[in-house]
C-alpha cells in the first residue's frame, strides 16, 4: 500500500460508527475535566478584576490582604517576567506574548471591565474571596471607547500610546486604535463596476459573540522546589500552554509539564492562556499547588469573544448573474489588544466564488472590550454574512433561484483564490447540487414561512503533529495522540489505526499524552486533528505493519516481499514455505525473539489540508406579535472529503449550525454607557437551548476525498458556522420584506423592522 489516498472501497473501520473509546468515562461522570482535579495541600486561587472599562492603575496595595490568615500568595504583573517578548504559534494565528502576558495580569493600565489586576491563593475559597476585597487598587479612570467605528474616530480615547497603524505608508504621525490596515485584491474593480449590468450594495454589522463553551476555564498548577512544574488544565493544546507559560514566567520549556485534562468545549476560545501563568506564579511564590477556576461571569468578561464587525459590500454582476467584481471593507473589533481575524475575513469572504476583480480592505481595531480569541472559522462567519446577504439581494433583483446563482459563480478546481492559493479537490458544486436535490429544498416553503440559503468556506489547516502506536504483548494496540480530544478525535484516531493495522476497533484504544510523553503538536484547532494528527497515526501504523512483516519474514526465514499483511494477520505467499499465518497476537507475544517491543512514533508537518465548503438551507417563521423567530427546518450539506466517523462529522455540522443560529438571532455582548458589560450570564446572553431548535439534517458530500490524507479526510469542524448567519437572515429578510443588515436579529429589532 502506498501512502496515497486509499479508495472508499474495502474500508472496514473508517466510515463506520463505533462507540468512542472515551465514551463510558463521559457518560458516567468519571472523565476528569479541568476543575475536577485535586491535589493534597492545594490552594484556591482567585483573580481581582477591573471594575472599569479603561483606567490607569496608580497603585496596588496588597498589605492588608497579605496579613489575612490563610492567604499564602499574592501576585501582580510585577511577578511576570517583563521579557515575555516574541510570538507563539496559537492555532490559526500567532500570539504576541507581551500582550498575552498583559492580558493575564494588567500592566500599567486596565483596558476592559474584568481585566485581571492581581491574584491571590488561599487555603479556603472564602478566604481567597475576602483577600480580593482587601487588595486596594487605586485607579485613574480614563475615557473609554467600545464600538469599532467610534474607536476609529480621530478623537477617540487611545488604548495604546505606541500603536501606529501597520500597513499604512507613510507611517501615521500619531498613535490610534487602528492596529493594522489590510488590503487584498486583484483585477480592475472600477472597470467591473463600470461594465456591470447589475450592482447591489449594503452595509452590515454583527455583534461580538462568545464561544460559549459550557466548561469555564480551569487549571491546577504546581511549582516544584527544583523549578520543575506541572500544570493540569483544560485547553486546546498542552504544548501551546507550555510555550506561553514558559515565555511569561521565563522558564525553560522542559521545566514545565502540561497534562491535558478533558476539555469541555473550546471552539477556538481555549487556544490561549488566561489562568495558567497566574496559577503557576502563585504556586512559585508559596510552593503549594494552586487551582483557579473561572466563574461564568469571568468567562464572559475576560475570555473570548470573537469580533463584532462593521462591513460594507458592493457587487458588480452581469444581467445573467455572473459576478464580475466586488468591493468590501471590514472593520473588526480586536478587543483590548490587536489581533482580530480581519485578514481571515478578507481571505474567506469571496472564497466560494470565482470573481475576477476584487478590492478588499480590512481594519483591525482595538477598543475597551475583552481581547478577542479564535472562534470556529475565525473571521469568516461575519464576512460571509455580508457577502451572502448581497448575493441574496442579487438573486432577488435578477429573479434567480439562489442556488442556481451560486452554481453559476461557484469556484471549481484550478481557480485562484484572492490570497494566491489554487483551489483543489473542491466539491462546492456538488454540495450546492445536493442541497438543491434535498428533500428539504424540494419541499415547497410552508405557509407563513420563508427560506434562506447561504454558502461558506474554511481553509482547514495541517501543521505539526505527533502520534505513537504501541502494540501490547497480547496483540492489542494503544494509539497515543498529541491533541486534546474536543469532540471525538480519540475515536477517529483509533479507527484510522485499526483500519491500517487490520484490527477490529475494539482492539485499539487511544489516549491523549502530556507534553513529556509524545512529540510536539500544534493545538486542537483549525480543523486539523483528524487530518494532521491522523496522518501521523496512520504513518505510525504503517511503520508497525512494516515491522510486523519483517518479524514474520524473520520467523519464517523468507523474503519480506513474500509476507502479506491483511486483516491483522501475516501470511506467507511463498509457495515453497509451508507455514501457518501469524496473527498480531502471535507476533506480539514473541516480540523479544524478533527485536523487542513493537512501537512506532511519528512526528510530521502535515501539508495539503484541503479547504471545505458548506451550503445551508433554513426555513423559519416569525411571530408577528413578539418578533420572535423560530427556525422550523434546517439542512446543512458539506464537502467533507471522507468522513472517518460520520456520526461525529454530522455532529460538527449540527453544532456549528446551532451556534450560527444563535449568532444570527440572539447572542450579543451588550454594553452600557459606562462601558460595562450588561449581560455577563447565560441567562442574559441567551444561547440556543433544545426548545429553540428543530432537528438539523445533514448531507455529507464525499465525492472529492483529499488525496493528501491517507483516507481522504478534510477538516470539518469550522465550515459549519460560516453559512448559518446569512441562511437565517436571508429567510428573515424575506418575511420582513426588507434586508436585515444587523445581527443579532433579536425580537425587538425584527419588530421594529416589520413596523417600518
Amino acid at each position, binding site marked *: 500500500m502506498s501512502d496515497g489516498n486509499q479508495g472508499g472501497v474495502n474500508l472496514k473501520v473508517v466510515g463506520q*460508527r463505533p*462507540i*468512542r473509546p*472515551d*465514551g*463510558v*468515562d*463521559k*457518560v*458516567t*461522570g*468519571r*472523565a*476528569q*475535566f479541568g*476543575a*475536577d482535579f*485535586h491535589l493534597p495541600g492545594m490552594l484556591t486561587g482567585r483573580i481581582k478584576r477591573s471594575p472599569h472599562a479603561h483606567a490607569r492603575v496608580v497603585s496596588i496595595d496588597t498589605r492588608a490582604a497579605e496579613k489575612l490568615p490563610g492567604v499564602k500568595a499574592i501576585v501582580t504583573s510585577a511577578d511576570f517576567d517583563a521579557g515575555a517578548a516574541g510570538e507563539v504559534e496559537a492555532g490559526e494565528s500567532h500570539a504576541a506574548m507581551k500582550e498575552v502576558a498583559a492580558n493575564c495580569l494588567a500592566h500599567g493600565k486596565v483596558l476592559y471591565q474584568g481585566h485581571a489586576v492581581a491574584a491571590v491563593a488561599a487555603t*479556603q475559597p472564602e478566604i481567597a474571596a475576602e483577600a480580593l476585597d482587601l487588595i486596594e487598587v487605586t485607579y485613574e479612570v480614563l475615557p473609554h471607547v467600545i464600538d469599532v467605528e467610534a474607536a476609529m474616530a480621530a478623537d477617540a480615547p487611545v488604548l495604546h500610546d505606541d500603536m501606529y497603524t501597520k500597513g499604512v505608508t507613510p507611517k501615521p504621525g500619531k498613535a490610534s486604535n487602528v492596529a493594522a490596515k489590510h488590503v487584498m485584491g486583484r483585477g480592475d474593480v472600477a472597470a467591473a463596476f463600470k461594465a456591470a449590468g447589475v450592482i447591489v450594495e449594503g452595509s452590515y454589522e454583527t455583534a461580538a459573540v462568545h*464561544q*460559549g*463553551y*459550557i*466548561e*469555564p476555564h480551569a487549571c491546577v498548577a504546581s511549582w516544584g522546589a527544583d523549578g520543575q512544574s506541572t500544570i493540569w488544565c483544560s485547553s486546546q493544546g498542552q504544548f501551546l500552554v507550555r510555550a506561553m507559560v514558559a515565555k511569561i514566567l521565563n522558564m525553560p520549556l522542559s521545566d514545565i509539564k502540561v497534562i491535558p485534562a*478533558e*476539555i*469541555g*468545549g*473550546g*471552539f477556538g476560545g481555549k487556544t490561549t492562556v488566561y489562568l495558567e501563568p497566574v496559577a503557576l506564579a502563585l504556586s512559585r511564590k508559596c510552593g503549594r499547588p494552586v487551582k483557579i*477556576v473561572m*466563574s*461564568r461571569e469571568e468567562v464572559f468578561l475576560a475570555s473570548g469573544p470573537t469580533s463584532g464587525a462593521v462591513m460594507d459590500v458592493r457587487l458588480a454582476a452581469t444581467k445573467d448573474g455572473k459576478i464580475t467584481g466586488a468591493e468590501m471593507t471590514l472593520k473588526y473589533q480586536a478587543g483590548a489588544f490587536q489581533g482580530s481575524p480581519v485578514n481571515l475575513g478578507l481571505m474567506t469572504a469571496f472564497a466560494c466564488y470565482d470573481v475576477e476583480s476584487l478590492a478588499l480592505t480590512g481594519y483591525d481595531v482595538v477598543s475597551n472590550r475583552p481581547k478577542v480569541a479564535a472562534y470556529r472559522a475565525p473571521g469568516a462567519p461575519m464576512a460571509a454574512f455580508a457577502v451572502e446577504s448581497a448575493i441574496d439581494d442579487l438573486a432577488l433583483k435578477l429573479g434567480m433561484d439562489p442556488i442556481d446563482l451560486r452554481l453559476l459563480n461557484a469556484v471549481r478546481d484550478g481557480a485562484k483564490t484572492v490570497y494566491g492559493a489554487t483551489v483543489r479537490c473542491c466539491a462546492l458544486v456538488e454540495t450546492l447540487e445536493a442541497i438543491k436535490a434535498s428533500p428539504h429544498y424540494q419541499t415547497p416553503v410552508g405557509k407563513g414561512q420563508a427560506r434562506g440559503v447561504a454558502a461558506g468556506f474554511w481553509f482547514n489547516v495541517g501543521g505539526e503533529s505527533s502520534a505513537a502506536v504501541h502494540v501490547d504483548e497480547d496483540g492489542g494496540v494503544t494509539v497515543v495522540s498529541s491533541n486534546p480530544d*474536543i*469532540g*471525538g478525535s480519540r475515536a477517529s484516531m483509533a479507527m484510522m489505526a485499526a483500519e491500517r493495522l487490520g484490527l477490529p476497533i475494539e482492539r485499539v484504544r487511544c489516549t491523549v499524552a502530556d507534553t513529556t510523553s509524545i512529540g510536539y503538536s500544534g493545538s486542537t484547532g483549525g480543523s486539523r486533528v483528524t487530518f494532521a494528527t491522523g496522518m501521523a497515526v496512520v504513518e505510525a501504523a504503517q511503520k508497525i505493519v512494516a515491522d510486523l512483516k519483517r518479524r514474520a519474514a524473520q520467523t519464517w526465514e523468507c523474503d519480506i516481499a513474500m509476507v502479506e499483511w491483511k486483516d491483522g494477520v501475516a501470511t506467507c505467499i511463498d509457495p515453497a514455505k509451508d507455514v501457518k499465518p501469524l496473527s498480531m497476537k502471535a507476533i506480539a507475544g514473541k516480540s523479544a525473539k524478533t527485536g523487542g517491543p513493537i512501537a512506532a512514533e511519528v512526528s510530521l508537518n502535515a501539508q495539503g489540508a484541503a479547504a471545505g465548503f458548506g451550503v445551508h438551507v433554513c426555513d423559519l417563521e416569525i411571530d408577528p406579535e413578539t418578533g420572535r423567530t423560530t427556525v422550523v427546518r434546517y439542512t446543512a450539506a458539506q464537502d467533507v472529503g471522507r468522513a472517518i*466517523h460520520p*456520526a*461525529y462529522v*454530522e*455532529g460538527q455540522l*449540527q*453544532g*456549528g*449550525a*446551532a*451556534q450560527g443560529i444563535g449568532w444570527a438571532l440572539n447572542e450579543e455582548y451588550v454594553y452600557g454607557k459606562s462601558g460595562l458589560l450588561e449581560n455577563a*450570564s*447565560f*441567562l442574559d446572553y441567551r*444561547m*440556543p*437551548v*433544545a*426548545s*429553540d*431548535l428543530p*432537528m*438539523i439534517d445533514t448531507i455529507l458530500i464525499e465525492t472529492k476525498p483529499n488525496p493528501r490524507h491517507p483516507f481522504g479526510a478534510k477538516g470539518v469542524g469550522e465550515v459549519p458556522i460560516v453559512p448559518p448567519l446569512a441562511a437565517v437572515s436571508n429567510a428573515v429578510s424575506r418575511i420582513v420584506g426588507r434586508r436585515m443588515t444587523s445581527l443579532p436579529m433579536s425580537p425587538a429589532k425584527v419588530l421594529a423592522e416589520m413596523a417600518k
Partner: protein
Amino acid sequence: MSRMVVNATVNGEPVEFLAGGGQSLLDALRDELRLTGSKEGCGTGDCGACSVIVDGRLVCACLMLAPEAEGTRIETIEGLADNGHLHPLQHQFLEQAALQCGFCTPGLLMASKALLDRNADPTESEVRYWLAGNMCRCTGYDKVVRAVMDAAADLRQAEKPR
C-alpha cells in the same frame, strides 16, 4: 467558619459530610464527597450541567444549599449505571454520538432520567422543552433528543410484560 454535619443518601448509600451555611450542594458533592461528575457551568442555574435528582425532583445542585440536603435522597451521574451496567440513556448517548466534549453530558443524562421517570413516552417537543434548562454548545441537540427518545423506547420495551 462554622460548618454543620449533613446526613443524606447519595446514590443509595448513606453519607455524612460537613457543609458551610453558604455552600451549595454542588460544591459539597464535588469538594466534600469528591463526586465530580456533576459540573459547574454557570453557578446560577442557567446551564443545567449540575443537574441531580433530589427526592425525585430534578434540581440544579448549584442552586440548593448543602445543609438543605439533610435527610434527602440524592441521585447523581455516578449512580446512573447499575453495578457497572449502563442505563439505557447512557447506552443511547454513546450509540448515537450524542456528546462531543461531554461536559454537559452528566447533567443532560440526569435531566433526561428525571423526564423518563415521569413520562415513559415523551414526544420530541416534550423532550426539547424538558431539556431546555440543559445547555449543550457542541451538538445542536439533534442527537441528544434522538438518544433520549430511543432510550425511552428501550425502557418501554424492557418493561413490557413477557
